[in-house]
């Protein structure tokens, strides 16, 4: 029992340290540069981390691939955007509506696809993503079509408008740390254990009474809700939305964040989100060759560390420990 409690406390300590680090970061940036450019990129890291955490739960713990996370991202963004601009609802209601809509859609797509063994979810979500993208483009009356729409209001907390980048930075990271806490709680619990069991042996999981379809659908719904939350934050931060950020390529990018960060680790999703968000910014100076460099860097990571950045990190720590033990 003591082992159990210390394990949980360790998780909480890690999350608190991470939260403090993130809270201090804008001030570190502020000391070296006058611009809020890095703070701005870090808002996107928070948003991408939330959507990647959902896919990490699905891929790393239920062993299922989704190629349609961008659709949930888009559903959240458009639900927030449309409800606040057309109906004048509070952004909070828009966020909620987006999450409920995504949950319903995930259930509808996931239930038939996850009943079958194999990677039917990947195909179903690929189709779902394309349909949703077409809807964003073609339902011009509602979505503004390819040119999108703007003037999405900022979020207010206790009457305070969160319109500055720094304000939104804290809002987005509060959400991202909350999602991290929830995800780690899920992983270290009865339902999380059931998911890992399914990943190891579906036969044995069913024999101990785990409803495999139900467990997989549940976690897919969670991933959809995370996606919608990320999308709503995007809409209120950028205040303008059009379809391109919600296309299939973004779904693949989210998948890469999870794989590069390390499948089977929620922290990995956050690392992967950070790397894949910063990398294009760092490589921008290469102009036309940036895509090439981007590809080479990602390929190198996958080739030399199939378990991603988290695997690479833990191997390095082990090596240093071993060296110390040997007395070097």
């Amino acid at each position, binding site marked *: *029992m003591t082992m*159990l*409690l210390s394990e*949980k406390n360790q998780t909480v300590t890690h999350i608190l340290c991470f939260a403090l680090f993130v809270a201090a970061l804008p001030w570190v940036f502020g000391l070296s540069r006058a611009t809020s450019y890095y703070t701005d990129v870090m808002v996107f890291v928070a948003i991408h981390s939330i959507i990647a955490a959902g896919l990490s739960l699905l891929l790393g713990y239920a062993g299922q691939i989704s190629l349609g996370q961008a659709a949930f991202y888009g559903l959240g963004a458009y639900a927030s955007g449309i409800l606040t601009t057309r109906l004048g609802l509070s952004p909070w209601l828009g966020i909620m509506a987006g999450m409920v809509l995504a949950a319903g859609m995930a259930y509808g797509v996931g239930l038939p696809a996850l009943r079958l063994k194999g990677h039917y979810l990947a195909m179903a979500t690929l189709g779902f993503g394309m349909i949703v993208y077409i809807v964003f483009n073609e339902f011009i009356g509602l979505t503004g079509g390819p040119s999108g729409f703007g003037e999405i209001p900022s979020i207010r907390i206790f009457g305070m408008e969160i319109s500055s980048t720094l304000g939104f930075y804290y809002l987005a990271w509060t959400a991202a740390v909350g999602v991290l806490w*929830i995800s780690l*709680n*899920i992983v270290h*619990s*009865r*339902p*999380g*254990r*059931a998911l*890992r*069991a399914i*990943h*190891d*042996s579906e*036969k*044995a*999981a*069913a*024999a*101990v*009474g*785990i*409803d*495999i379809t139900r467990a997989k659908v*549940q*976690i897919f719904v*969670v991933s959809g809700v995370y996606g919608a939350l990320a999308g709503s934050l995007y809409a209120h931060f950028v205040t303008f939305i059009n379809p391109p950020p919600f296309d299939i390529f973004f779904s693949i990018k989210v998948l890469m964040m999870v794989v590069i960060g390390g499948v089977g680790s929620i922290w990995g999703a956050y690392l992967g989100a950070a790397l894949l968000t910063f990398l294009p910014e760092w490589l921008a100076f290469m102009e036309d060759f940036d895509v090439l460099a981007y590809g080479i860097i990602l390929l190198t990571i996958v080739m030399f560390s199939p378990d991603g950045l988290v695997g690479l990190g833990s191997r390095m720590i082990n090596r240093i420990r071993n060296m110390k033990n040997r007395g070097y």
Partner: protein
Amino acid sequence: MTSLLKIRHLSKRFAGVQAIFDLSFDVTQGAVTSIIGPNGAGKTTLINMISGVIHPSDGDIRFKGKSLSGLKPHQVAARGIARTFQTVELFGRMTVLENVMLGRHLKSRKGLISAAFRLPGVFREEADLKARSLSVLETVGIADYASLKAANLPLGEQKLLEVARALASEPQLLLLDEPAAGLNEVETQKAAEMIMGLSETGVTVILVEHDMKMVMAISHEILVLNYGAKIAEGPPASIRTDPGVIKAYLGDEESGS
């Protein structure tokens, strides 16, 4: 003596192969019932049908008076039937303790929402689950390995862990598919003693096993299958001398082996 499990006119065809043919038998509550027969006699098919992994082509399986027909494996487990597998099916990347905790999946209740937000009771249930699972490991005698990865256990202990996981659910009926396969003589002896001990605590056991010494020693009732059909049924003493059984095992001109 009441029968816990009643099987009536059960048949299973796989694409032209008759795996089980018009099989009827009863399993007495609290007894050890062994199912024996040559390879391909349909023993594992029978276990898979009882546990809901495959569905019968015909006939009915009733557990405590209620039909199991159409139930999925997790629903059969919820009725109080646990099983082990012929080829070990553990959660290999998880610890020995976690494997047993998963065995108690149905005995714990906390779902996704309470786990996600750590609602009250989550810690208590986890601690309780851990304590009870450890005590099951002690019963089976592998508590020392609790924090090891299941895949890293020696085969004998893996087999025991499968039994521990099944026992953790406190089943009324336990289906053991060749628990002694791959075990040495000492380990087999230990397994036999454990199964006898289980039956004394009131668990009904269906045992599929090739080790005749073990089967004869611990069974109350033996069912002999050959080519999917019942050829004999009775206590060990009568099975030993049954001419039909001897013929099936030693072979004759027609069956060759």
